């Protein structure tokens, strides 16, 4: 808690981002209370992040007080690479399947699934490599 006053810039900037996120939901037709809850949820994640142990905390950096260190940067790189490779193979597989079996273009909904597959791969790799 000694670092709290120096973290003011970080917390203020994240409060603004959270409010903007909630505002984005509100102006796109989401009920105001869901938008407010979403904004509060995002801000809660920003409050938790410095205490999570996932980031190197450097209050003197102001709004960019949370940094990755060498290990977490390596994990992020590997997770991104795995997600890219999985998506590339999934898209290649879809193209081969639809090109050779049905002689048609790949439906858009299948491309959305490859995106979800990539995101899942990223987070699964991240969680797996962070286990200690």
């Amino acid at each position, binding site marked *: 808690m000694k670092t709290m006053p120096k973290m003011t810039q970080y917390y203020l900037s994240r409060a603004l981002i959270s409010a903007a996120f909630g505002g984005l939901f509100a102006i796109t037709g989401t009920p105001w209370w869901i938008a407010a809850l979403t904004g509060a949820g995002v801000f809660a994640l920003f409050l938790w992040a410095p205490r999570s*142990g*996932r*980031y*190197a*905390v*450097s209050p003197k950096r102001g709004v960019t007080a949370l*940094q*990755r*260190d*060498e*290990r*977490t940067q390596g994990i992020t790189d590997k997770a991104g690479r795995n997600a890219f490779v999985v998506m590339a193979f999934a898209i290649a597989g879809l193209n081969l399947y639809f090109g050779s079996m049905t002689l048609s273009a790949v439906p858009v909904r299948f491309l959305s699934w490859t995106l979800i597959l990539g995101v899942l791969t990223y987070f699964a790799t991240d969680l797996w490599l*962070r286990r*200690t």
Partner: protein
Amino acid sequence: MELKNCLRESRTQCGLTQESLANLVGATRQTIIAIEKGGYTPSVALALKLASAVDVPVQDLFWLEER
């Protein structure tokens, strides 16, 4: 060969928590935990920072052992 270390013992002798050591060397708490458990081999730069933070020569903090 396996890299071993006595970071946990050296850290507690200095009265440092994992979080305070992480802050001292600019690493995450998860990284300190991983090094103490032997699950992560730090870079030379981080090993030197850790040795300096706990005031132990780096060759006494980290050493290689036959598996």
